[in-house]
């Protein structure tokens, strides 16, 4: 799309990093982040710089299309492409919101415990959403049920009540960079720990817990 499109010539600046991405690479990164988010059982890091860049790009494309002459076919094809990108972007954000709603006490707890240097799992808007959601849920439970209970039962510990994300669930993955010496823990009592190497381009089905840090670093793509 953007290779032949001579209406957009600029490269996008990836926010906090100094890397300059072509639009095609940006879209590919968005799709990868989208697929990772869809298949991971827990909330991944927030890629807000990609989101911002994509929104910028979409705005530019919209402006350019307005200026272009009414050559029907090209305009409608570009519009279709824009719709597709918009869908991927909103699906990505929706997936994140669904996970926030599902695991809100654990996510907020993780944010509180996070050491200063690491990047956040939540964008500022998502953080505000999570806090409000928690406040609303607590208020709702209190008004509907808890205030009618005897005084010593009026607390519900949401951290224990809400189920944790299941990190033991199995995920399909494709290896992008070769990895060595991944320690795989046993599933049953008869097996023992063993060590595997991941070849580039190979595909595996493995427990999420084993490869969670690799997903975060980008060496692995969930499919």
């Amino acid at each position, binding site marked *: 799309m953007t290779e032949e499109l001579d209406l957009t010539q600029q490269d996008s600046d990836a926010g906090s990093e100094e890397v300059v991405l072509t639009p095609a690479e940006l879209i590919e990164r968005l799709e990868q982040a989208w697929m990772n988010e869809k298949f991971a059982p827990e909330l991944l890091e927030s890629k807000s710089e990609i989101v911002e860049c994509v929104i910028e790009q979409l705005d530019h494309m919209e402006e350019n299309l307005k200026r272009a002459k009414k050559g029907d076919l090209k305009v409608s094809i570009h519009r279709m492409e824009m719709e597709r990108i918009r869908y991927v972007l909103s*699906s990505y954000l*929706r*997936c994140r919101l*669904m996970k926030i709603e*599902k695991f809100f006490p654990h996510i907020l707890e993780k944010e509180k415990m996070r050491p200063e240097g690491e990047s956040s799992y939540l964008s500022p808007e998502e953080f505000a959403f999570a806090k409000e959601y928690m406040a609303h849920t607590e208020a709702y439970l209190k008004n509907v049920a808890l205030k009618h209970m005897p005084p010593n039962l009026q607390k519900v510990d949401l951290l*224990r009540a*809400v*189920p944790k994300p299941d990190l033991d669930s199995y995920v399909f993955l494709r290896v992008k960079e070769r990895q060595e010496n991944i320690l795989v823990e046993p599933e049953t009592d008869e097996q023992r720990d063993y060590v595997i190497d991941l070849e580039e381009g190979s595909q595996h089905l493995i427990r999420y817990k084993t490869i969670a840090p690799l997903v975060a670093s980008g060496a692995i793509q969930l499919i």
Partner: protein
Amino acid sequence: MSEAYFRVESGALGPEENFLSLDDILMSHEKLPVRTETPMPRLGAFFLERSAGAERDHALPQGSKLELPLWLAKGLFDNKRRILSVELPKIYQQGWRTVFSADANVVDLHKMGPHFYGFGSQLLHFDSPENADISQSLLQTFIGRFRRIMDSSQNAYNEDTSALVARLDEMERGLFQTGQKGLNDFQCWEKGQASQITASNLVQNYKKRKFTNMED
């Protein structure tokens, strides 16, 4: 992902049931035969048929057999076994285990306690010596029955499925429904109805409330 409301799913098959899950609440309400190891003062009044020879203070004598729901038995069970000792229900014992290993498909799991898998998984908390066999038997039963469930759920489109679902327990019924939903969604997409905007199922229920109720 396009649903408006995400229910809390059952955690019974994992290490611990989920506090907020309705399925788990229903599951843990099933009863379990239990024997008391210590006398329980003043509880004899609740179990009148057991304390037939009741003393003055209606104590429940040691060794009496009761049927308690799972949540109560779990709460009272202690590793040093001072209060309760749990007996396994019939379907998790050796006799039925051999039936399951012979052919798992013919058994009516709905009759055997509608929460066969969940209840069986939570039973493993009671440290019975047969735990390894029970877990193996649960797993093999599921493996034996799964293929038929998957087959029937993916190929029964727009028909009455009550005959197919009658002998499945609750967890298997959930699986069946997921399969049906996937099939229906796919057919919808093929017909091109996937891009039609329909009313959310949460909103569809609003009409049933009277207007006066909404003013509170």
